């Protein structure tokens, strides 16, 4: 029922989530959120070879999460915001829906527990009265 556009959007989201599933790649994105950086600068905080970092960068680039800027020879990497924003919005809608249901459930559970306490109190009282009448 979904138009082709949705399937493309869905495939892009899959790529986004897959790329975000790795802690090193998330750290790279966090670093790029502060500003563009070269591969050398990005490799610095990790005890990883430059080729290993380059592999992560390729995954991020394929997912559209980062791009290479054209300026200068070192071609610093840049964070692309749109795919991340899409991924967050997507889960966020689902999350908000359930958050609302669960908040209602919280109130109901509180009420049930208060009710339980009241019933126990009445049972104790009843037992007390019955005990006295015997």
């Amino acid at each position, binding site marked *: 029922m979904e138009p082709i556009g949705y399937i493309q959007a869905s495939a892009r*989201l899959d790529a986004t989530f897959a790329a975000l599933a790795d802690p090193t790649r998330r750290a790279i994105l966090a670093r790029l959120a502060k500003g563009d950086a070269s591969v050398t600068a990005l490799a610095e905080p990790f005890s990883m070879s430059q080729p290993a970092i380059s592999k992560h960068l390729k995954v991020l680039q394929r997912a559209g999460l980062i791009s290479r800027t054209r300026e200068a020879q070192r071609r610093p990497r840049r964070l692309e915001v749109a795919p991340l924003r899409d991924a967050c919005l997507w889960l966020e809608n689902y999350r908000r829906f359930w958050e609302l249901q669960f908040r209602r459930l919280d109130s109901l559970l509180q009420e049930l527990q208060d009710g339980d306490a009241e019933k126990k109190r009445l049972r104790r009282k009843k037992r007390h009265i019955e005990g006295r009448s015997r």
Partner: protein
Amino acid sequence: MKNSATFQITAQGDREIVVTRVFDAPRRLVFDAYTKPELVKRWLLGPDGWSMPVCEIDLRSGGRYRYVWKSDTDGREMGMGGIYREVVPPDRIVATEKFDEAWYPGEALDTIVLVEQGGKTTMTQTILYDSRATRDAVLKSPMQTGMAASYNRLEDFLPSLGRDALSA
């Protein structure tokens, strides 16, 4: 008001959605709230402005359940139901789920596990879909099915709920 530590939604593997939530109540009560129609009707209402006129539950393995929601504003209805595959009070419910006007193919399999610790109950709900495409479509569902009210309105509503919870 954010309780992210006690509430998580994740897309697990290719075909699953996992919802985890901690409730400040014993497991027995949470189980009742998920399985007694008179209680389900009071919280599983959908977005603001919807009610749940139909909630039928035949709580046994092989038994059916059926839910219908209705919009108070325009009378639109939306129904879903399924069959219980496993019912183990007070900690485990497995059931199929299918919407009347499903926007995705096949049935989903829903597993709810309740674990109690120190008077609190952790609910883990795993929903397994036919395929990855189905799972991904469902994650967008509140927007797609028209069940979603305006989220702006919803956001206005949430803080007041938070206050109620605090004062309760």
